[in-house]
């Protein structure tokens, strides 16, 4: 697995790296046009496509963002359209950990244990300002950002994020995964 992002010869991670120029074999006919023309795909892309179509989140509702996370399952925003309706409560069956709410130090150990118990490939979305950066609580009990204990893929701002904002975060995650960007624990070594 090439470890540097630059060597991924894929176009669509422009969203993560807009200044990245075309890579080695893109000068001739683009890879995607070629594959599109012949109707081919690599096995890895097919697997990635399948994974993004059924990424089951773990019900990790902490605080106010949990109420908004619940409303993306409701009829109006309906995350089932993206294959994520089944909110699994056990980490063994979950692929995506949406940390929704402020993380106290007392809750950090269980959060880390649940993240370790999730099965690879796994992703983490830090939902809301408090999960991303401690939000408006800079005091003795709130962890200043979940990325201190778990590698985070997507940070969703706002307090609490609108359901549309969270869904855009999820769709960005799907796009990034389809584009070939590996999950966070492979890019950053926080996870053992």
């Amino acid at each position, binding site marked *: 697995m090439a470890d540097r992002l630059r060597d991924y010869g894929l176009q669509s991670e422009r969203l993560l790296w807009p200044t990245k120029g075309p890579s080695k074999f893109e000068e001739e006919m683009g890879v995607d046009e070629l594959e599109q023309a012949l109707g081919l795909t690599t096995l890895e892309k097919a697997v990635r496509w399948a994974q993004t179509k059924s990424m089951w989140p773990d*019900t990790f509702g902490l*605080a*106010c963002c949990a*109420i908004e996370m*619940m409303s993306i399952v*409701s009829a109006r925003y309906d995350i089932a359209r993206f294959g994520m309706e089944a909110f699994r409560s056990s980490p063994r069956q979950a692929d995506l950990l949406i940390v929704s709410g402020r993380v106290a130090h*007392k809750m950090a150990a*269980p959060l880390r244990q649940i993240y370790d118990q999730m099965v690879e490939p796994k992703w983490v979305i830090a939902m809301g300002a408090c999960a991303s950066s401690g939000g408006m609580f800079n005091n003795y*009990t709130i962890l200043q950002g979940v990325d201190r204990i778990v590698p985070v893929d997507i940070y969703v701002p706002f307090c609490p994020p*609108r359901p549309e904002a969270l869904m855009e975060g999820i769709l960005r995650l799907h796009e990034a995964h389809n584009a070939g960007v590996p999950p966070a624990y492979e890019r950053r070594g926080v996870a053992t």
Partner: protein
Amino acid sequence: MAVAPRRPRVRRWPIVGDPPYDGSRIPERVPTILDVPPHLEDSEDVFRINFGPNHPSTHGVLRLIVDLDGEEVVGLSAVIGYLHTGFEKTMETKTYWKCVTYPERIDYVGYQNNELVFVLAVEQLLRLEVPEKATWMRMLLCELNRIHSHLVYLGTSALELGAISMFWYCFREREMILDLFELVTGQRMHTRYFQVGGLAEDIPEGFYPECRKFVEWFPHALGDYLQLLDRNEIWLERTKGVGPLSAHDAIALGQTGPNLRASGVDWDLRREQPYLAYDQVDFRVPVYPEGDVYARYRVRMDEMAESNRIVRQCLDRIERMDGWPWIADDRKVVLPPREELHTSMESLIHHFKIVTEGFRVPEGEIYVAIESPRGEAGCYLVSDGGPKPWRVHFRSPSFVALEATPTCARDGLIADLIAIVGSLDAVMGDTDR
């Protein structure tokens, strides 16, 4: 060691109807811990499980350590603090202007009521007159917030007992209410619309027809819920007679709000100690003497209907208040309007003082209590005359609701424990503060 009142209280007015059991079911040694009975103490059949912080049906990060004998709960103790956010310490380092937005995050389901209790406390210390339009609009939004809170309760606790479709029904109405909040305040949750002295902005005209539409539609929605649940055999079997709490135990455990009214105590702060303009609005206070999960469900359903009536009456009054002031004009506390800054020097000075140093609250201590969706939400505010509160303490109804879990879950099944924790409607942010 829980001492019942010396003189057996003759049943007077606040207690209505006969209690589900007499005597007290509060655990003797420690009121909030249900100990394993001695004959089971050393038997290996007792099965200790963690109803832990990450559990689908604990409404947040509550951890219950449950001792099971087969399926019967014989031992229970709660561990809280997994969402302790240090509100009181953080608010001591912020000026009053910045503090107003913190209380919303404490009880994040009934957020406007929490913000109201802090704002009322500051206004009473300042002896500030709030214009009538602001008072009525606060009451309207707090009642809408009460409906929103009861809808979230109904959706999640019915979901846990298997009535999954209730979740989608309730969140459909909840979205309507959040649209109203967004129309008035610009934000779905944590609206920060109440300011010390009145409202943050005036009420947009489009709000009245929208709110009228919701008020017309909501009774039909309530009818749907009742049709779905009230004659549903499974729901009745799972809730009737489960987790009883008598009036004396409820008072001894400091229960307030729907938990208290469901145990047969006719007590509602909106009627007993009217704040805002609740004395000029007529509404009924539902009381049920059974004190079980079904009674708490019934109290909250009736309260939603009553709140809807209150919203209707507030709407009629506010529609006639066009052009009235919506915030006090005491320049020492309230920011002067923008256009005034270009012309008058004093407004500029006041604006500068308030924005940099924050307005000062005269020295004193005060405890203000309101009827939040979960019960009596109180705010104890101590000020030393400076622009920052010296000590803020929020009396949280969910904190005492969780104290009643061991009493209600006594000799029930593990499945009843889920119904009981759902019916006590404790929000963990409010419990851990």
